[in-house]
């Protein structure tokens, strides 16, 4: 047997005897000392001092009730009223029936009558009580979240179902609280900061629900669930939290969101009810004007629509309802722009719902994990298309595909992507990978090492959505990338906003210094195009040249380029 386990099984538990009569203390010490480590106290004050000193190691207290000064009832009251001590069981020593009843009502675990029973009976009674309380301690330890002291999710769900069972007619609100980009906060300010924040939120939640007969738990590291009787003013919970943590929130990017499913339908499974609260919570993600949302009819319809899309995906893949569109990218460095490459973008032509925007279905598939199958479909289809055009026109039009951090982190990703290219007969120079800036924020060393491997193999790496993440200049110089792809929000107002233009010029200068090319996407107007060209941007993508188009329609751009003999 493991030495540690064995020592734990055979260690002597600590018992405290509190009695003002020395003879009584000595008799109990005689009875207990073969099995327990015994500590003695001859009055209430000494007892309390020793209890506090031994609070983590004391297994039980045997307490005389009638003592001069601080008596046993007072000691029992102090122990029961102290959250740090009340887990220690107390057995009272008494000869009075009325005192037995009173002390049991006050929280005593048991009593030992005076004069004492035979030693075996006393030992058995103490042993049973210790065993019972230790079992309770183990159960308690598994029902609470260690960091916040709230329940853990399993216990919370169990407790919520018991509440439903006993109070079937009480309207209950299911509430989800979530912290935006919590992992980024952890990265920026350290884990200790994140933990402190979670504890503070946990404390405010507990403080708020305590007198409202609600329960709460932490889930998924940075989220909280609350189940409480319906209230017309749920925002009070939100305000209680934000008031409490406002001092910590110097970072404007740090936001808390709250989703409420009010008077949740009890016919629904509990998890489903909290899914609805989460749905409401997610509806304000990225919306900087709102932080609280209630699940309503509109959301219900939206949810039903989402569920339908999730359910239809498998069939859609089989029936080739997904189509890859290509948006051309034009090199604008010379006198005349010319087609340099394309970005592969997914579209869904649903037989009943018509053309569905990727903005509607991609978040759903990201959530249910099916996005990887869709990504793979796009990678393969794009590679096949590059090969087909190369064969048909004799020129290679490199196509870029999106790769998420989850894809990069998946073991075997590099083999998978090189395998696809090999199957289609094209090389890495004809195939580019777009990785978002935010992909580098967590486990950046690992991501960098994988991207380095891809570059060594000859892939071109574009940093997508540049300017939306948190890259520092220092970090930028160490990232393995070839192209910076400016987020479209830089481009949108460039012809009207001097500051945006200066920002783009600055980024282009930095890119030149780091020997990177710059792509601007979302270019729609001639003025934008002209300014970006003057600023030194290399490549343009956007409606100014073309929206994303099906492969057949894209071929006209290839033919044009062929005609220009670039």
């Amino acid at each position, binding site marked *: 047997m493991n030495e540690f386990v064995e020592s734990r099984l055979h260690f002597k538990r600590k018992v405290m005897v509190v009695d*003002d*009569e*020395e*003879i*009584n203390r*000595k*008799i109990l010490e*005689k*009875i207990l000392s073969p099995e327990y480590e015994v500590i003695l106290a001859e009055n209430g004050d000494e007892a309390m001092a020793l209890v506090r000193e031994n609070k983590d190691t004391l297994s039980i207290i045997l307490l005389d009730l*009638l003592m*001069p000064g601080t008596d046993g009832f007072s000691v029992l009251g102090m122990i029961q009223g102290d959250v740090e001590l009340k887990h220690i069981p107390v057995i009272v020593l008494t*000869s009075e029936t009325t005192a037995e009843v009173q002390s049991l009502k006050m929280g005593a675990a048991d009593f030992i009558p*005076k*004069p*004492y029973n*035979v*030693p075996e009976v006393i030992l058995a009674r103490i042993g049973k009580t210790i065993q019972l309380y230790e079992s309770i301690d183990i159960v308690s330890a598994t029902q609470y979240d260690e960091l916040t002291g709230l329940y853990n999710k399993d216990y919370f769900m169990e407790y919520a179902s018991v509440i439903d069972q006993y109070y079937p007619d009480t309207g209950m609100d299911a509430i989800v609280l979530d912290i935006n980009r919590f992992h980024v906060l952890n990265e920026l300010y350290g884990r200790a900061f994140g933990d402190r924040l979670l504890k503070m939120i946990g404390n405010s939640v507990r403080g708020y629900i305590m007198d409202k007969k609600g329960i709460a738990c932490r889930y998924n590291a940075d989220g909280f669930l609350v189940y409480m009787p319906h209230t017309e003013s749920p925002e009070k919970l939100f305000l209680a939290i934000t008031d409490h943590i406002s001092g910590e929130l110097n970072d404007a990017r740090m936001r808390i969101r709250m989703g409420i499913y009010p008077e949740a339908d009890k016919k629904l499974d509990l998890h489903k009810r909290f899914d609805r609260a989460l749905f409401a919570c997610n509806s304000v993600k990225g919306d900087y004007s709102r932080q609280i949302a209630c699940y309503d009819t509109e959301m219900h319809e939206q949810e039903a629509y989402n569920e339908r899309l999730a359910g239809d995906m498998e069939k859609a893949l089989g029936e080739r309802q997904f189509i890859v569109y290509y948006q051309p990218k034009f090199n604008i460095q010379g006198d005349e722009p010319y087609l340099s490459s394309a970005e592969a973008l997914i579209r869904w032509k649903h037989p009943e719902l018509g053309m569905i925007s990727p903005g509607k279905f991609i978040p759903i598939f990201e959530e249910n994990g099916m996005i990887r199958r869709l990504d793979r479909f796009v990678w393969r289809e794009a590679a096949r298309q590059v090969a087909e055009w190369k064969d048909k026109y004799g020129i290679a039009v490199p196509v870029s595909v999106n790769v998420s951090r989850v894809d990069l982190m998946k073991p075997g990703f590099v083999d998978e992507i090189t395998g696809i290219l090999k199957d289609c007969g094209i090389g890495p120079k004809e195939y580019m990978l777009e990785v978002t800036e935010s992909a580098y924020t967590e486990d950046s060393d690992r991501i960098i090492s994988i991207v380095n491997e891809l570059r060594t193999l000859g892939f071109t790496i574009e940093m997508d959505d540049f300017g939306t993440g948190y890259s520092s200049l220092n970090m930028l110089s160490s990232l393995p990338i070839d192209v910076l792809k400016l987020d479209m929000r830089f481009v949108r107002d460039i012809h009207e906003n001097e500051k945006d233009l200066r920002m783009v010029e600055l980024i282009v200068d930095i890119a030149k210094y780091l020997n990177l090319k710059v792509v601007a996407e979302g270019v729609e107007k001639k003025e934008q195009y002209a300014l970006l060209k003057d600023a030194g941007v290399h490549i343009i993508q956007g409606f100014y040249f073309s929206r994303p188009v099906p492969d057949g329609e894209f071929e006209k751009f290839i033919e044009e380029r062929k005609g220009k003999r670039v």
Partner: protein
Amino acid sequence: MITVEKLKELGCNTEEGLGRCFGDESFYLSLVPGAFEKERYENLDRLIKEGNMGDAFEEAHAMKGVLANLSITPLFDVVSEITELLRAKAETDYSPLIEKMWEVYTPFGEML
């Protein structure tokens, strides 16, 4: 000198008292003198005579507990009777009972 035989002769349930001490005679006998400390009986006598019935009850109750655990039956019986009257705050003449207490105490006190 106090012995188990003498205690038994005086009416103590020594078998029971020893039982609480795992039959350890010398341990039991080391505790017994504490139950015969004259000062405590004198203290109880004084408190009752002074009419301090609250303190008298606490003292009597404490003595009763010790006598019970050591099974000093004759002294336990009389102290127990006093304790219950004091608990009930009985307005009675305690002197016959105090006299009886000293009477029972004498042979035990002489052993010290």
